[in-house]
């Protein structure tokens, strides 16, 4: 789409970010999907920006526990058998990273909305749907990886290395599914104009964390398995 902007856009002063207000939405952070703030619908408590970090910290600790269990278990006995990681994992990694990109695109679209430039923006919802699709594709790809391992005779209890492979990837995939739930929540709220900017930011941070976590797990598995 080609748009030549010859002069600065006219921004509705009501939609300008307030100094010091959390997020940069209107009242209680709401993101107007169609340009209007439906103020009366939001009864929830004020936005909290620290909560997502609480969640990410807990998830980090959980995977730290699994990681140290892996390292100790590998060193505690001689029965660790390495195997080649299914190659589809690398494709899945690219898919997940792509989904982070698409999520960021949708966030940029939201920023455009906030500035009142709705007429020149595509719906951010479309990019959220793409992210959702890529996320589902990732989970399906993980399932394919498990199927491939099963075909090679590597099950959960076959060897400690395969045990950790399944535990780590399955736990990660479960958390990705949780992230998909968050995306669905965001899409629904956006369509009803009750989405809060803070909720979108938190979901995005969670999603990007799933990326980073996956890359870490891939490295760990690649090094140790």
């Amino acid at each position, binding site marked *: 789409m080609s748009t030549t902007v010859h002069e600065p856009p006219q921004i509705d002063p009501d939609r300008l970010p307030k100094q*010091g207000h959390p997020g940069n939405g209107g009242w209680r952070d709401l993101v107007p999907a169609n340009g209007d703030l439906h103020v009366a619908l939001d009864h929830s408590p004020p936005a909290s920006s620290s909560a997502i970090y*609480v969640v990410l910290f807990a998830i980090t600790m959980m995977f730290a*526990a699994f990681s140290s*269990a892996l390292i100790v278990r590998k060193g505690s006995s001689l029965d660790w058998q390495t195997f080649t990681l299914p190659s589809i994992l690398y494709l899945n990694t690219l898919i997940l990273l792509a989904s982070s990109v698409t999520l960021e695109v949708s966030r940029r679209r939201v920023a455009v909305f906030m500035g009142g430039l709705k007429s020149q923006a595509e719906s951010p919802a479309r990019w959220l749907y793409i992210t959702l699709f890529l996320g589902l594709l990732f989970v399906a790809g993980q399932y394919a990886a498990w199927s491939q391992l099963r075909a090679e005779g590597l099950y959960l209890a076959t060897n400690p290395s395969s045990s950790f492979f399944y535990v780590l990837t399955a736990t990660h995939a479960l958390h990705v599914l949780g992230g998909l739930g968050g995306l669905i929540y965001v899409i629904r709220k956006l369509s009803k104009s009750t989405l809060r900017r803070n909720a979108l930011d938190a979901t995005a941070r969670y999603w990007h964390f799933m990326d980073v976590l996956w890359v870490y797990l891939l490295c760990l598995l690649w090094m140790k398995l």
Partner: protein
Amino acid sequence: MHDMSAPAVHHHAPPTGFIRKHVFSLDHKVIGKQYYGLALIAAYVGMGLSWMMRIHLAWTDAPIPGLQLLSKTGAPGGVMTPEYYLQLMTMHGTIMVFFVLTTAPFAAFGNFFLPIQVGAEDMPFPHFNMMSFWVTFTAFIVLMASFFVSDGPTLGGWTQYAPLNAVGAVAGPGQGTGVILWMTSIALFCVGQLLGSLNFIPTTLDLRAKGMSLMRLPLSAWAWFITSCMGLTAFAVLMPACILAILDHVAGTSFFVASNLVINGQPIAHSGGSTLLWQHLFWFFGHPEVYIAIVPGIGIVSHILITNMRKPILSHRTLIYSMGALAVLSYMVYGHHMFVSGMNPYSSLAFSFPTLVITIPSTIIVLIATFSLYGSKLRINSASLFALGFISMFVSGGVSGFFLAQPSIDIMLHATYFVVGHFHLVMGVAAMFGIFAGTYFWFPKMTGRMMNETLGKIHFWLSFVGAYCIFMPFHYLGMAGNVRRYSSFPDDFLQPLIPVHRFITVAALITGAAQLIFLYNLIHSRFWGKPAPDNPWEATSLEWSTPTPPPFDNFGGELPVVYHDPYQYGVQSSAGDYVMQTSPEQVKTEHEEK
């Protein structure tokens, strides 16, 4: 342009309908009361279990009337079998540590009062908060279900060491389904507590009212905040450990089960696992867990004492930093549970140093609490008695830590009653006293009625003296070599100690009976207690500025503004010798917050 930072001008509707108001409530106060109710039930179940244990230890072959109704195989004719003793003991420990000591001081009081003390309408995620209670409740039901499965509950102790926790029923009764139920229950419990931390931490960081700086938070709020941070790290490690143990049990993996094991003549199919790995994961959670049990008590007791001393403590900041130091150090000391476990002896030495060092913040807390009494105008009531009793009990329980922190001495004291005495004094008594103090103090605000003071004092006296009679002798038993987790004492060298056990049992039964006085007082006062004024203790923090009991949005639609530090006592104001945090009145402060 409307000013969005002013107190909320629109009111959201209060909840309607019985289910929304009392069952699946989003109101943090209802959730707090639900947690309290859960802890209350758990406490009496746990106490009943301890009675049965103590009776069996003192009179091993005597039948306990009615016990066969609970388990025909566990107690034929009412006489407890050794395995049933261990099963009851495991449930006692698990119920008390998780469903009483983590639930009441932190989840119950914290849920009710943290949002009010910071000046918020509710927690930021009421749905997750509601989920946190119901997940915890489900965890309790799952655990209790193990009483009713054919084999009974697991007998491996609340610590569930590997490989006993993973090899299945071949190792003993309860080690099949019982273990699975235990692991599932505890994994659920971890989820519930993580959801709780998810609310507590943002409440403290993001939802404070105007004028409520971090240093103006009451000590109880700080304690809940620090505890929720500890819980975040600790429970997030226990849950994966439980998952791995369940997998070893049902999926044939070998995370914790070593090779070539033969149990009762039966070869075990697992191989290669690390026995000590479970201990490392468990105690990395387990040690912070005991600080999760005590830190809210420290905050609550300080909060109550200050109100009853009519003067702030010597240094608000120091107490906060000390609680924080306890939290941070609690992660570095966990190996002191493993000194003789077979881990590297250099690691044992390494863990002993932070364990000794953690004495320093504990001492600072005791010193500040005690020496703040100097020059105070101490009021004696049920709440302050339990708060003062907390200090005495925390000292008593803490000094035995000096011994256990040293690996060389631990050689003689590990797995003896000395350890049992130590942790019962700090957890089973001091932390419980914190719960009692909080109850007597906050009951008026939570229910709108006063508790009976006379009954409260009787409850205190019997509990204080009784608890010492029960748990002080445990230390002597331990020093004499009395091993713990024994269902009876056939060994020659233990025979002279049996009379001590009988004394302890009698003390336990009497002290336990005294807790029924508390239960009666609680229930009777709830319905027929004297109506309570909004601020019966002439206290300063935000919870006393609300109506009694507080409405669904705590402050009636208008968020408070905070003008003062939390403990402005000993001043001259229109209210008396104190000024509330929300009062705009300027007063001559005698005490600067340091």
